[in-house]
């Protein structure tokens, strides 16, 4: 599948399932935007982790987010084997915003906020 990241500024790619709750996708995108990093969307499958893996590989910033049909969120870096961050389907809106923010903070080289709480 061709990436939407080939032209224009490099972006954090967000791969969301067509049935992914719009409120979840909106919070994730808002989190990235608040940090001042551009985003773009791509289609994703049932598995948010596979979506995040694909998005990270396609992103020229090497960071991707996957959002599943159940609202689960996964943040990945293309070079890191394990997911950087995983949110369960029932997470709070603020945590989803923060997950998007952390995806952007990986790009910006800033300490992650979800990671600090763990």
């Amino acid at each position, binding site marked *: 599948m061709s990436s939407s990241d080939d032209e224009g500024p490099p972006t954090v790619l967000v791969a969301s399932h067509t049935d992914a709750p719009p409120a979840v996708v909106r919070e994730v995108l*808002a989190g990235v*935007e*608040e*940090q*001042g990093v551009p985003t773009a969307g791509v289609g994703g499958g049932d598995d948010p982790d596979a979506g995040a893996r694909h998005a990270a590989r396609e992103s020229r910033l090497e960071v991707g987010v996957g959002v599943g049909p159940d609202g689960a969120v996964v943040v990945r*870096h293309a*070079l*890191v*084997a*394990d997911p*950087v*961050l995983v949110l369960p389907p029932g997470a709070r809106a603020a945590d989803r*915003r923060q997950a998007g923010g952390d995806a952007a*903070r*990986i790009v910006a*080289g*800033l*300490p*992650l906020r979800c*990671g*600090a709480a*763990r």
Partner: protein
Amino acid sequence: MGEPVRVVVGVDVGNSTTEACLAEVAGDRADRVDRLASSLTPTTGVKGTPANTAGAVTAVRRALEAAGRPSAVPDTVLLNEATPVISGLAMETISETIITESTMIGHNPDTPGGEGIGVGTTVALAELGGQDGPVVVVVGAGADFDDVAERVNRAVADGVDVTAAVLHGDDAVLVVNRLTRRIPVVDEVSAVDRVPLGMLAAVEVAAPGRTIRTLSDSYGLASTFDLDSDQTRQVSPVARALAGNRSAVVVRTPAGDVTDRRIPVGTLTVTGSGRSLDVGVDEGAEAIMEAIRRVAPLTDVHGEAGTHVGGMLAAVRDTMTDVTGQPSSEIAIRDVLAVDTLVPTTVQGGLAGEVARENAVALAAMVRTSRSRMQAVADEIAAQLGCEVLIGGVEGEVAVRGALTTPGTAVPIAIVDMGGGSTDAALLDRDGRVSAVHVAGAGELVTKLVDSELGLEDRDAAESVKRHPLAKVESFFHVRHEDGTVQFFDAPLPPHVFARVVTVTPEGLVPVPVRTTLEAVRTVRREAKRRVFVVNTLRALAQVAPQGSLRLLGSVVLLGGSALDFEIPAMVADALAPHGVVCGIGNVHGTEGPRNAVAAGLVDVHAGLAEPVGAP
């Protein structure tokens, strides 16, 4: 020559560690001491008290195990004549910043929105619309960024002059990106509901990498709020408090003020040379140390009851009373080290958790007694191990003898033992005389300064910063060490250290819970070490040096755990270099490093290898 070989263990009970040196001694000649093993274990109880027995026995057993003789019984255990040293630490904050009537928000949200300065009357988002003059919108908790942007855009379309906004949530960039008219927006104002409405306010956001120019300047404030010269004088603390921020909000209220207050924290009474001086703790470290110099030699110090410092001095005295059984009236504080420090403190009356760096004074005190109870320790060790136990060698003297086995040293020789609670110095002069001194302030004070100046409130984190070099994690696969070298890793680093300032410990990278830069943490660490160890080394050596002149010292050997620190020995050597002193890390018997000087020295003196010094 024909004497039987005896197994001898020298045991040095120190403030924090107990060290043992196991040797075989045959006869009384230099080549008859065969050092087999050494060991190190934490001291149990206060040095010089019966509680030391457990640690001393452990040290002996570990040395025997290390030598491959776990079931052997030594012929003789040699103990140092340890005397109790009790030290205490306290800190008093002596300034505070108070904001009244919520006049000022001076914090640095990570991501403010827009740029420039906007001035207007504060209006709640719900009330926006129909205003005549310029307005600053105040948005409470729970507002959605799309909703906020939509309402502001509508008001602007209706002719309202919206010049700036103040938000509760972290969404300034999101709001600004959706506005038809770009305005400065400050977000993450946690107590936004306390921002007074209907008042003239100014919001300033600087470009990335810049700091605000107008609200952090007295005349900038005067121009913005149309102030006369008296009013300008009044608001100058506001300007000062905002300097260095990337964003700020100032609200002009009838009685609003920012005050910088000195907190009275009681007095210290220092006694010496037959006179007493009172010095206010809030006068700072310099004044306290000056008072101590004026009454030198210090014989006692008292603090005002009800203050931290007074409580600490009383606690030190009480602990010594408990340990030695001496009445507290007989126990005198013999040394105090005061250090000025800055403590990040949450500003009273602040609306966004603003932090100001307040002045504080840290104080270390030390009390010492000559009443050692080592005989009780000796009796108990003899009973437990079934061997002869001898007490020999006054403190400092044996250590000097041990230090003198460091290759390249010669008499006159001075030692500096930088411990946890006190810094000890001793000098052996050409005539064989030994003088020794203990001064307050050592490793524990460094940890405390690091902890409070970085606002860690975590002793373990502070200890880690003190002990280990720093690095910045720059990606999932590499770090940049504090000296600039880069290290790559094969496996990705965990997310919790990503982009953080970390300490490089033998167990791995440990994040330092601060938002400041590596350079700032490094400066705090090195300054704390300099103000304690360098200052104390010079202070202690000056007291033992002939005529108080460091030039006459010759060589200075650094001993103790802090001599193993990665930077303290170099800092001390640098400070001593201008005095023409050769200074280096002890290497007892050329093999033991800065440890074991006393334990090895006890064996040498016992075997007749070294002259017993001091005592007739």
